[in-house]
């Protein structure tokens, strides 16, 4: 079965500094990988997805992620954090029929 591990439960950065949220995955088959963001008391919003095309994936709001098969990683990055980026971020893996397995989440705090 597929699974993901988000390596940090909480990341704190200053506004204007880079963001790195780490995710490792496990899958017996070629996976699709996603990053979702969830603001407090809100639903899930898709940031970006990897589905076996380009390994560097660009998403919304300046986020991007790189699929590294050799490292089984799919880390999320952003060059410059904004206050509005403060939220919970979920790394997700899917193999067949969109059965999505979520990581435990990383809470991003952005300090002014």
């Amino acid at each position, binding site marked *: 079965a597929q699974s993901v591990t988000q390596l940090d439960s909480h990341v704190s950065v200053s506004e204007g500094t880079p963001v790195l949220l780490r995710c490792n995955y496990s899958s017996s088959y070629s996976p699709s990988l996603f990053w979702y963001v969830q603001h407090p008391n809100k639903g899930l919003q898709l940031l970006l997805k990897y589905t076996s095309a380009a390994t560097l994936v660009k998403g919304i709001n300046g986020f991007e992620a790189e699929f590294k098969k050799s490292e089984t990683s799919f880390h999320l990055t952003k060059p410059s954090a904004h206050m509005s980026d403060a939220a919970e971020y979920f790394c997700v893996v899917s193999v067949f*029929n969109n059965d999505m397995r979520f990581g435990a989440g990383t809470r991003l705090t952005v300090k002014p």
Partner: protein
Amino acid sequence: DAGVTQSPTHLIKTRGQQVTLRCSPKSGHDTVSWYQQALGQGPQFIFQYYEEEERQRGNFPDRFSGHQFPNYSSELNVNALLLGDSALYLCASSFFGAKDTIYFGEGSWLTVV
């Protein structure tokens, strides 16, 4: 074009009661999946419905059951509610078998007292 809609948005139930949550998928989607998100945790897969049948199931007891209607909408039923069932229940819609974007609803907040 309406996205995924869920109802009700919030509800409170008593232990031992039964609850039904509803989901209408995004227009054109034929598959509905349900997830449970407990406070402070990531969503956990409950089950998936396609062609009115349960296709996949996560690690949830039989108290959790579902249904899909011919118009692709779906219901999640939970019997004999426990305090631990308190969570945000999310519905996701997609095309069956496709590695396409999956759309989530805003969720139904269930509190069991």
